[in-house]
Structures are given as structure tokens and as C-alpha cells.
């Protein structure tokens, strides 16, 4: 049984990519970097979904369809998220999230 036929490899890979995205979301200062990290996390989840679709006979057709739905929702999320970032940037003149402190003062 080769490396590529092992479900654990793909799941560990998806977990690693999700953790990278989590780190980026928590640690970056730039709002667009945070959105890119969210995209990484969505991709990690998609990889796990397609993996289950490819390895579980009961999910053979459903996995890719759910992954396609996730992609469509991710496209909608990116559109609205980036529009919100641009709207905030127009008001505050900065993309750095730690300078959005209007609610703290």
C-alpha cells in the first residue's frame, strides 16, 4: 500500500494547512492577510472533504459536490469580506486591524 493510498496522509496534510491558516488569522495585523488565512483554512477543510469522498465508498459522489458548494460559499465570503475591508479602509485609512480601536476609546 503506497503513500498516496493512505487516508491518514491526506488528513494530516489538511490538519497542517488548517493550523497554518489559524496561525495567520490570529497573528497577522493586516486585515487582508487575515482573509487570506481564512481562505487557507477553507481549503484545508475542502481537502478533508474530498479525501473522505475519495476513500469512503458511501460518500463517493457526495464529497466532490460538498467541496464545490464550499468553494461557492468561499467565493461569496471573499467578495463580501474584501468589500468590508475596503469600506473600513476608506474610513480609517489603514488596513491594520489593531488600529481599528473606535469601540475601545
Amino acid at each position: 500500500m503506497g503513500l498516496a493510498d493512505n487516508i491518514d496522509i491526506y488528513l494530516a496534510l489538511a490538519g497542517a494547512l488548517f493550523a497554518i491558516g489559524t496561525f495567520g488569522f490570529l497573528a497577522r495585523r493586516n486585515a487582508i492577510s487575515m482573509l487570506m488565512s481564512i481562505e487557507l483554512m477553507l481549503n484545508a477543510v475542502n481537502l478533508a472533504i474530498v479525501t473522505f469522498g475519495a476513500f469512503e465508498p458511501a460518500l463517493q459522489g457526495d464529497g466532490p459536490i460538498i467541496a464545490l458548494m464550499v468553494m461557492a460559499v468561499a467565493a461569496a465570503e471573499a467578495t463580501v469580506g474584501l468589500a468590508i475591508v475596503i469600506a473600513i479602509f476608506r474610513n480609517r485609512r489603514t488596513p491594520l486591524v489593531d488600529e481599528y480601536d473606535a469601540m475601545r476609546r
Partner: protein
Amino acid sequence: MRAWLYLIGGLVAFGVVATPGLLVLLFFGGSSDDVMLASLATLMLVSGIAVVTMRDIIRCGLAMIVCFLALAGIYVILRAPIVAAAQVIIYIGAISVLVLFAIMLTQDKIAPARLVFQTQALPAAIAAIVLAVLIALAGVGTDWPGAVDRLSIATVAVANQLFDEYVLPFEVVSVLLLAAVVGGVFLAKREPTRRDEDSV
């Protein structure tokens, strides 16, 4: 001089990506799928780390495209070509362009900020590593029932199921995308002055 630096950098990057594949080929005697998976996984993880750690955000966006492309290759290895094609079209074609445009609209001349990370970067790194280990342990430790060898996913079967059993989610997604387009235009357009509402 700079061209030589780029050439050397490209060679180093190629070596980093090709080495795991060669190692798998030499020590495990893997098939071509194994070699491709090792190289693509390395490319995906390295470019993913580049997305979250690089200083210049436009390079983060370009590294994100590389990450998506490697993931599309992994979908091909998983024998889901329809998902790989959708990955290239939607993520690389649409979302990456959107992100790059947003970067160009929001960065000023002093673009690379002095501090890339917030103050809680170190706890975030620890939390992310713990999360990765936990997910890997849970995934490896679980005995997935019925998990057999890779099944190839026929595009025709996906299409039949999508337009038969999943036709309602398909239509709902089209409404969602329309709402997102309208919402994006509404949020990003310049706010008009609301004099008449104030006077009421």
C-alpha cells in the same frame, strides 16, 4: 546581478520541492502518485507558511496562488478531477484576483508595515502547532470504517448527482452568489452624503 540571484533562488526552491519526491522514490520505492504527492504536499505547506509569514503582502498573495495550485494537484492525485478544475477556476482565477485587487487598493506607499505580526503571535504559533498535532493524532488514530483504496470519482456521476439529488443546494448557491455580488457592490461603493435622512 539580480537576475543571477533570482535564478539561484528558483533553483533552491525547485530543490526544496523536488527533494521529498526523490526521497520517497529512493527509500520507499513509491509509485508516481507517491512522488507527486510528496512534492505537492511540500510545495503546499511551504507556500502556505509563506502566505502567513512573509513581510510583503503582495508576495503573500502570490504565494497563496502557488498554494492553491499545489492543492489542485493533490485533488488530481485523489482522482477528483472536477474538484481540481473548480479549484483552478474559482480559487486561482477568481478569489486570488479579488484578493490581489484588494491588496492593491488598500496598501499605501509605506506598504510593508514595520510589524507584520500582532503582539500575540507567539501564543498563536503555539496554539496552531498544538492544533495541527491534535488534528493529525485524531485523524491517524481513528480507524475509518470502510476506508478502502482510492476510488476514482467520475465526473459524469458527480454531474448526475448534482442536478438530481443536490439540485436545491445548487439553486440556493446561485441566490447566495447573487446576494454576495449585490452586497459587495453596496459595501464597496462610496457612501453618499445622507443629508435628507438627517433632517427628518
